[in-house]
């Protein structure tokens, strides 16, 4: 990192303000990006990180303030303007066409520049070469929809690199990656920054920020708390900046091994969407009051096993016994968790509509429904301006809280959770962890699928590791990481 005083910044944002109605998402934010730096923007959910990305990318326009690209004031009216100004974005939810091949997706990014005429091979080759320079061998002819999350992200990054932008913004790039994939991503980002590029990483994970950042900006409630060199900063200090307090430590509790068996799977086989074997002979036993963790690289049969456990995907072999059908916290809240166009109340009713207490003569009791929803909103601290607001208007963290709240609402005997804290801030994550621990203390048997090993370490009594559709039960979490190829 060169001295910031002598180097011309690539991008400088000054006094940015963005309001949504009465809510001020960004309140006078200054950010300066220099060539050759990895700049990590840290903050809890709702701190304004995503809004900042949207303003810098041109997806939203600031209500006040200015953005300078190489000292020139720019007015970014659309993502297209952002791209023209040399700002490339890698979104949290990928902007890829699943049915197109990798090459086609890469070529699509430059379709505008070539005036609608597209030579897929030529346009894609630039991005593929850029990726190859970094040590990635992308399967050019494979449909993107068939790739794992980590590989899809590589396609996105290759797209951004080939765009030739001087700045690349990555919004929560590690939220669905395994530790190995994260390390690989960081290696690439260090190579990619070179001496001329600025890379911005948006995250809420402290350890990752410290692992890669040259400089750190911490946002809280729409304001910059601090911008500082990353070197020598203690994690606890950043946590204090982010939340104003250090989150309470989680306590792991030894599972009572003599409890009654709630979930018992013996040699369960499950088919994937394309009819291929996804789970191949998985056996597990989960007792009352136990949290059983399942880790591993995404796409190794976890989704199919989870869906079989909750009874929405047929078991093609072996036996599966559950006392009652487990409550389900699905992995992807946008795909499987929420109806974004429906209200907060309706999204809570996804589970609640089955409760006999909420209806009479085949119709909902409006008062009882509202009271039930309000209780959940209060209990799970879901931030919303009203039950009638569409779920789409909530921040990601609060959307996930809806999914968790309704699953835990009726105190189920068994719970299957997949990455239940994905995209949640430090406090909300601690809250969900506490809630799951409480549920297990009260006797729930929980199967916790998580790609976050720290989460498994914090919560699970026993853990297994999933690889190639098989379940390997290791000893402790560290051993499982060791067993990963």
């Amino acid at each position: 990192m060169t001295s910031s005083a002598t180097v011309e910044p690539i991008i400088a944002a000054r006094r940015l303000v963005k309001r949504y109605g009465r809510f001020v998402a960004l309140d006078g934010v200054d950010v300066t990006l220099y060539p050759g730096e990895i700049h990590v923007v840290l903050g809890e959910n709702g701190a304004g990180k995503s809004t900042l990305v949207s303003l810098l990318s041109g997806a939203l326009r600031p209500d006040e303030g200015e953005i300078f690209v190489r000292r020139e004031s720019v007015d970014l009216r659309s993502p297209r303007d952002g791209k023209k100004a040399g700002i490339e974005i890698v979104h949290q939810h990928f902007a890829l066409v699943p049915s197109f091949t990798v090459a086609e997706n890469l070529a699509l990014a430059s379709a505008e520049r070539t005036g609608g005429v597209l030579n897929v091979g030529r346009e894609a080759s630039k991005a593929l070469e850029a990726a190859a320079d970094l040590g990635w061998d992308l399967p050019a002819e494979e449909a993107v929809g068939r790739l794992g999350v980590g590989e899809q992200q590589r396609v996105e990054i290759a797209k951004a690199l080939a765009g030739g932008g001087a700045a690349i913004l990555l919004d929560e790039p590690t939220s669905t990656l395994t530790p190995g994939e994260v390390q690989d991503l960081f290696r690439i980002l260090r190579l990619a920054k070179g001496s001329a590029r600025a890379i911005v990483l948006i995250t809420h994970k402290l350890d990752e920020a410290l692992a890669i950042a040259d400089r750190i900006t911490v946002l809280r409630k729409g304001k910059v708390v601090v911008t500082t060199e990353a070197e020598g900063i203690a994690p606890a200090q950043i946590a204090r900046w982010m939340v104003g307090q250090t989150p309470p430590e989680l306590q792991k509790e030894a599972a009572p091994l003599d409890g009654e068996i709630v979930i018992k799977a013996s040699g369960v086989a499950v088919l994937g969407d394309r009819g291929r074997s996804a789970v191949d002979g998985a056996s597990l036993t989960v007792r009352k009051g136990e949290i059983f963790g399942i880790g591993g690289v995404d796409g190794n049969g976890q989704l199919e096993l989870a869906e079989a456990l909750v009874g929405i995907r047929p078991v093609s072999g072996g036996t599966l016994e559950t006392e009652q059908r487990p409550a389900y916290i699905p992995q992807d809240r946008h795909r499987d968790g929420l109806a974004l166009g429906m209200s907060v109340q309706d999204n809570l009713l996804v589970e609640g509509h089955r409760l006999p207490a909420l209806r009479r003569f085949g119709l909902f009791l409006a008062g009882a429904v509202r009271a039930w929803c309000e209780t959940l909103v209060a209990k799970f601290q879901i931030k919303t301006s009203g039950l009638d607001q569409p779920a789409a208007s909530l921040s990601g963290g609060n959307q996930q809280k809806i999914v968790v709240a309704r699953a835990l609402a009726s105190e189920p005997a068994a719970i299957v959770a997949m990455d239940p804290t994905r995209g949640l801030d430090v406090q909300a994550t601690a809250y969900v962890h506490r809630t799951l621990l409480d549920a297990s203390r009260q006797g729930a048997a929980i199967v916790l699928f998580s790609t976050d090993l720290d989460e498994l370490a914090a919560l699970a009594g026993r853990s297994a590791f999933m690889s190639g559709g098989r379940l390997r039960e290791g000893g402790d979490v560290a051993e499982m990481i060791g067993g990963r190829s």
Partner: protein
Amino acid sequence: MKTWLIVPLGLLAILVLTLFAFQLPVGESLKLLFEGAFADKYGVHRTILKSVPLILIALGIVVAWRAGVFNIGGEGQLLVGVSAGAAVAHIFAGQGWFFQVFILVVCMLAAGAYAGIAAWLYAARGVNVVISTILLNFVAIYLVNYLVRGPLQEPTKAIPQTATLAPAAMFPVLDRQTGLHAGIFVVPIAALLVWLWIQKSPSGFRLRLVGQNPNAARAARIPVTRVSVMALVWSGALCGLAGGIEYLGVSGYLFDKFSPGWGFLGIPVALLGGLNPFGVVLSGLYFGALFAGSRNLEAFGSASSSLVFAMQGAAVLGFVALSEYVRARSIRGAA
């Protein structure tokens, strides 16, 4: 501007623009339209009668579309329903309210079963509902052509239509001069029941969830296919009800052009009503008023009847744009 004002003002603006585009004197044409639809008893009753089949079809469309099932087959379902109703009516040759309810049920069952063909093709074979329901419209249209020249033709075999029902078999007439009949009361009842079902019941909630995000519905252990099938069958049944009301209330017989395209018009009515059962009543009345009023425009102005369709098309397009604007406003305001 108040949100609720945006749509009616927008519709008025669109109406004015359409008249302007057709180079009609805007003020005079609006007056003629309004008088034709609302000025006297004849206008009001005409508006109501024109809107009855449109609203019932649109309610059927609402049920299917809210479940994400794009039923384009209202026309065919209506025709099959009314064919069955007419056949049974002539077999039993009854009268009175019990007979009328019976015929309506027959219409609904037959139309629901007809929609069930598309539903089965979808559930068992994965056939796109849009395509199957469109194609089944043509089957139904030619079925009616055949029936009114064959098995169901009136006894003298002179005209291609069924025998006319006896007045006592039809709905009681409320006004002899305008032909207003008691069947119109089915409309508010149907709208209320559909509203209670879709908006206020667990079953309707599942239907809406399937329509909004079938993946989330599946993850919540809702049988997505079964809900879709049920929605399409009920949608067809409501279209059959529309045919039955028209048959027992207005025509009293079945013929080639029994439906002047209600099954298709019901779709824009449903869209204009925001896929809301009560909204559909309002938009159906609006469409009915345009039909009723345009008669006046034709008679005293210089406009052709096709103008009505242009006005309706513009109204729907404008409404879709307006409602997207209103929705975006509400999301922005809430965030």
